[in-house]
């Protein structure tokens, strides 16, 4: 913990203070921070807002223009505080410096250490050293699957891309798929088979389990229980079915802590059967998302985000644009991209949905009273949706109540969307069930001592089960538990046997995507540890207890048949990553009249919203440093969860989040939250646009057995979650505690102080003025010749990039793709607190409008590759220099770490290795790294290079064929991962390239173009399409008049 006084509290001796250059006025600054720690009230903010033009802001502190904020932005890399751990005093420092100066000339002349070349015995035919191979596979998750192409360098999987042929990917991926590489190589993964703490062999397990199974068979499986996650693997499902047929008394339970059971319940009620809902956002003109974050986090989000964004691409010839309404109980990426958004506390949400349904004339809609603002929103939405019959979508988040789902089904039917934009099909999951009820059943049976053998396949219920079940205590009643998982986690501690799970990149398997398409999962590498696949564990319950995963999966799909055709089809399916024609047929169903009733009763006190964490999900990614350090979309928090509250709620509870000067971290108040007699302490984080009197808690933190990275981070929100209040709770008691806690939010890191970074317009404004991004005279770009230096003519290629702010949904996938491709290190919370995160591309989040009801914009900022680059001129050793193709090359081996370049960079995109952030010793991390990119050491500046390794490889390939690089042949890591095609890279010297055409668009503008840096990366202004009939919280601003 860092104490309240930012600089005084750090553990630094006076000797270290003497080394600091320049000398900081530490006392004065910390006093200033104290003096102005009273945050602005909403009224003051509103007054400030009303006096300026349309203003974009990144944090409430920036909006308020507080003194702390000013002091913070004046400092490049805010913390000059020493981090030398050795007690170096001034005298020995000078001695060392003297010696190193004397030897400086020799430092570069090292003899290379001896290195070995180790060839194969027999070289596999397809492996060419130095050439990467790509293999298709799929990532099973959340009741679906995402198809992947995985790059393999000399047999080591190093980077994941999307499979363009797969319906849930179409070539893109998301943060979780990217992070799987790190999970594969995680040294904290469980490595051995364990029995009561002793290491055992797989043979030992087979011997013991087969003995036990024959005993169970004689009892028809009574007392045998399986607990799995959602399963979409047809072959695994068939095995489960076979086992259950064999032992009819055995039971199959399922539990995924972050999946809602409402879709299941509502679908049973509406259709009398389990159905799967599919949406075609590419055909929808109007979308209403009811607490649905369809762009982030689920197995379909990549596909849906792409489909949705296709309807949002605008050009001068566009006559219409789709419109997205979002009504939600917390903040989400989808809500941030809405044209019109309304924040509603959970206890008022069902009446609001009832009001929309009633306005659409849906039978059974509950006509409860709602606030005038909500009624106005509901009426306007209903009117707009009714004008787009058959071309609209109403989509509900899976955590919403059965009532909301029932209403959405009814509204989609009433609007004629079913069969046009909304489709139903048989479920893709092998056996859908109400997972909450299923887990409750299991816990009760365990308490009644009815379970004598429990097989847990890949689930962690001790951590994730609702608190009221007291799952850990119940487990103690079970005499025989087998736990199978990637980590030796909280649940493994209670198990008698623990079997390490093979990562999907090490396994043979299969999985169905949301539309039913089957993918064969093929391994990229043999299991690093003793991992087994789920198939191999389940087969111990059958006649053939020692079958291999490959045989099981292949036999399932080929039926054991051999021969030319069968083999050819099998090989084709493995190669393509999809099995052709395996989609499940869609059907048009009419829902039965809705008779569900609202289920959330309003109560005095606060409403609580539980959500899976945006980056570490339900806690399964807690040990993945890449995801921990990835700023969470909207909140920008890293390494922690928090109690998210609105500004008004914070004022009501007298909560403060005080900006500190060490690195722009926040010292926030800790609140005590009590729900139904259970309590948790949480630091607060104030989020503009959050509903009032509501607190959002992200699940997944507070793990105790996650691994070295994920242990003891944040707080476990699951402690106040019960099986009755899975997603919402009402009547919570919240009080402020005297404690404070530092939160590493990155929202004000690398700030460019406004300066016209984001430019936006409504669709109407855009149609009237296509050139809206160039409206402000002071942001105009000066003539390119306005410089002391002569112009350079780029004769060959001239690489450039455009980023369409209209398409960027702020999912942060580009950040993590860049981390994976460019060997970017994780620095840890303590360093993020000092603004030292290393991400080469950051996604800035800007708000505009009132703090209660803001519009949100996202802006990815990589190195802008300026043609007149301020960084190049100040490098004393030419470590950063201009290439003949217009890149700002960064030569790491030349860099001596003066950091002048970073000081001179107006975009703040250069990152400095203050410490040795890379792990140079862990063997698995060595396997993980991209061999095409230098691994940087301490004291070196680094930055985005437009993935120069990909450029060079494509150029070499093209030059061998004596041709130019084709447009689209080079795909940067951020471009490849982007689900909405917001990032486009190419040669701007080729007038027919996509990037050159986008740069000629009227929406094209340069970030801080008035500085005459002539950046190669440019942005396309954002266009939103709000409904003019919906009023906004009134802020009188120029250019925002329609919001009255």
């Amino acid at each position, binding site marked *: 913990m860092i104490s309240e006084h930012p600089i005084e509290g750090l553990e630094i001796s006076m000797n270290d203070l003497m080394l600091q250059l320049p000398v900081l006025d530490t006392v004065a600054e910390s006093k200033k921070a104290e003096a102005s720690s009273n945050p602005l009230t909403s009224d003051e903010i509103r007054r400030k807002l009303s006096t300026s033009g349309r203003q974009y802001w990144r944090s409430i502190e920036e909006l308020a223009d507080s003194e702390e904020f000013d002091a913070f932005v004046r400092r490049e890399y805010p913390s000059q505080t020493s981090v030398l751990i050795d007690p170096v005093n001034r005298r020995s420092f000078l001695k060392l410096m003297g010696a190193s100066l004397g030897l400086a*000339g*020799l430092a*570069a*002349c090292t*003899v*290379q250490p*001896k*290195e*070995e*070349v*180790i*060839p*194969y*015995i*027999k*070289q596999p035919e397809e492996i*060419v*050293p*130095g*050439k990467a191979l790509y293999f298709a596979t799929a990532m099973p998750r959340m009741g679906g699957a995402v198809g992947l192409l995985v790059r393999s360098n000399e047999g080591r999987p190093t980077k994941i891309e999307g499979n363009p042929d797969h319906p849930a990917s179409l070539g893109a991926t998301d943060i979780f798929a990217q992070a799987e590489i790190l999970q594969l190589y995680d040294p904290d993964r469980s490595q051995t088979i364990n029995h009561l703490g002793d290491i055992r062999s797989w043979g030992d397990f087979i011997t013991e389990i087969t003995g036990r199974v024959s005993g169970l068979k004689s009892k028809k499986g009574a007392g045998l229980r399986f607990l799995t996650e959602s399963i979409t693997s047809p072959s695994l499902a068939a095995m489960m079915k076979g086992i259950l047929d064999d032992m009819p008394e055995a039971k199959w339970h399922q539990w995924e802590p972050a999946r809602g059971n409402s879709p299941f319940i509502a679908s049973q009620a509406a259709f009398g059967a389990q159905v799967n809902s599919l949406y075609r956002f590419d055909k929808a003109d109007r979308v209403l998302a009811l607490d649905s974050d369809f762009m982030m986090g689920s197995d379909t989000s990549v596909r849906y985000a792409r489909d949705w964004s296709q309807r949002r691409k605008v050009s001068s010839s566009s006559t219409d644009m789709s419109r997205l309404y979002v009504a939600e109980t917390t903040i989400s990426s989808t809500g941030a991209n809405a044209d019109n958004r309304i924040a509603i506390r959970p206890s008022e949400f069902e009446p609001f949905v009832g009001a929309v349904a009633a306005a659409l004339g849906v039978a059974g809609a509950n006509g409860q009273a709602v606030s005038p603002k909500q009624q106005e929103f509901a009426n306007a939405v209903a009117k707009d949706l009714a004008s787009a019959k058959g071309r609209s979508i109403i989509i509900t988040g899976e955590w919403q109540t059965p009532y909301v789902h029932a209403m959405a089904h009814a509204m989609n039917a009433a609007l004629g969307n079913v069969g046009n934009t909304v489709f139903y099909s048989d479920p893709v999951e092998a056996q859908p069930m109400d997972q909450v009820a299923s887990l409750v059943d299991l816990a009760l049976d365990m308490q009644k001592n009815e379970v004598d053998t429990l097989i847990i396949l890949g689930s962690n219920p001790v951590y994730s089960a609702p608190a009221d079940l007291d799952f850990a205590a119940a487990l103690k009643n079970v005499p025989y538990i087998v736990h199978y998982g990637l980590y030796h986690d909280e649940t493994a501690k209670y198990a008698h046997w623990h079997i390490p799970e093979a990562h999907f990149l090490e396994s043979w398997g299969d999985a169905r995507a949301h539309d039913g398409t089957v993918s064969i999962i093929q391994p990229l590498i043999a299991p690093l540890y003793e991992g087994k696949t789920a198939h191999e564990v389940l087969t111990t319950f059958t006649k053939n207890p020692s079958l291999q995963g490959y045989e099981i999966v292949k036999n399932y799909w080929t039926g054991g048949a051999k021969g030319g055709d069968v083999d050819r089809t099998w090989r084709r399916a493995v190669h393509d990553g999809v099995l052709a024609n395996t989609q499940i047929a869609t059907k048009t169903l009419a829902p039965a009249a809705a008779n569900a009733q609202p289920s959330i009763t309003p109560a005095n006190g606060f409403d609580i919203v539980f959500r899976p964490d945006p980056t570490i999900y339900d806690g399964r990614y807690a040990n993945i440093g890449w995801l921990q350090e990835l700023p969470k979309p909207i909140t920008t928090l890293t390494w922690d969860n928090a109690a998210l509250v609105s500004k008004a709620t914070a004022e009501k509870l007298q909560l403060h989040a005080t900006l500190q000067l060490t690195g722009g971290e926040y010292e926030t108040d800790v609140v005590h939250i009590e729900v139904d007699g259970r309590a948790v302490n949480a630091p607060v984080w104030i989020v503009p646009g959050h509903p009032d009197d509501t607190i959002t808690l992200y699940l997944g933190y507070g793990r105790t057995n996650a691994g070295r990275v994920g242990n003891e981070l944040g707080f476990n929100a699951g402690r106040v979650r019960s099986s009755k209040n899975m997603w919402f709770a009402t009547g919570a008691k919240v009080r402020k505690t005297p404690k404070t806690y530092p939160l590493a939010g990155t929202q004000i890191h690398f700030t460019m102080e406004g300066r016209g970074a984001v430019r936006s317009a409504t669709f109407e404004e855009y149609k009237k003025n296509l050139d809206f991004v160039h409206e402000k005279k002071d942001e105009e770009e000066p003539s390119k010749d306005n410089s002391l230096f002569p112009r350079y003519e780029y*004769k*060959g290629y001239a690489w450039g990039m455009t980023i369409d702010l209209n398409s960027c949904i702020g999912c942060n996938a580009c950040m993590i793709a860049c981390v994976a491709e460019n060997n970017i290190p994780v620095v840890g919370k303590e360093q993020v607190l000092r603004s030292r995160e290393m991400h080469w591309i950051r996604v800035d989040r800007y708000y505009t409008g009132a703090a209660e009801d803001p519009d949100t914009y996202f802006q990815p900022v990589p190195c802008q590759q300026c043609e007149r680059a301020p960084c190049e001129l100040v490098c004393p050793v030419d470590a950063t*220099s*201009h*290439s*003949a*193709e217009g*890149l700002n*090359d*960064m*030569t*790491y*081996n030349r860099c001596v770490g003066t950091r002048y370049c970073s000081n001179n960079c107006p975009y703040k995109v250069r990152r400095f290795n203050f410490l040795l952030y890379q792990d140079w010793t862990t063997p698995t991390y060595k396997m993980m790294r991209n061999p*095409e*990119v*230098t*691994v940087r050491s301490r004291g070196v500046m680094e930055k985005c*290079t437009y993935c*120069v*390794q990909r*450029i*060079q490889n494509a150029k*070499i390939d093209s*030059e*061998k064929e*004596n041709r130019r690089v084709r447009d689209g042949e080079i795909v940067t890591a951020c471009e490849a991962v982007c689900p909405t095609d917001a990032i486009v890279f190419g040669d701007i010297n080729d007038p027919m390239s996509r990037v050159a055409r986008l740069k000629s668009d009227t929406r094209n503008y340069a970030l801080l173009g008035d500085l005459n840096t002539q950046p190669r990366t440019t942005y396309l202004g954002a266009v939103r399409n709000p409904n003019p009939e919906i009023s906004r919280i009134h802020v009188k601003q120029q250019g925002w008049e329609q919001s009255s």
Partner: protein
Amino acid sequence: MGQIFHRSANPIARASILFSGAIAVVAVYAIFIGIPRSSYWNQTDIIKTQPVQFSHKHHVGDDGIDCRYCHTSVETSSSAGMPPTKTCMNCHSQLWATTTYLEPVRNSWKTGIPIKWTRIHDLPDYVYFNHSIHINKGVGCATCHGRVDQMPLITQVASLQMEWCLDCHRAPEKYIRPRSQVFNMAYAPPEKQIELGLQLKKDYHVLGSDVLTSCSTCHR
């Protein structure tokens, strides 16, 4: 305490003051130019022990085996490729199949443990060299690796320092040869090499030296 230096050392002391300038020049030359360019630092002409006494002179010079028989990926990949044990055994399961000389090779074949060769041409890890593009643009093997066909034990002939790379990247016409001659060890450049080089540069679309000397061409 007695004197450390004998009286006779005085002239040397005086001379060192007199010639201090020259001494400084020599020292600077030695530290910054002489030593870094010496064979000791850049490892040229140094014979390193290998697990098998493999002779390029015999295989290339006497037997006339093409470079690509063993270094298979030199035309397609960044790495030229090191031959797997199988390549050795193609011949040596029949020829010299019992000689003690080749015991390590047979051993590797039997046990499945690879032969660990010592790397001779070792670029720093921050340099990304690609064999295939050089071969395709007419840089001969011997241009960088020397007359391998005359080396019983292989040594490095070029310094592999950046100035050496840049010498060619600044003016490739000085070194490039027709593609048909790339693998010819005995190729001698014609008298009018510059003329030929310029023509080949055009024919093979060799990029300009502005691109070839950009940092990111080799460093990333």
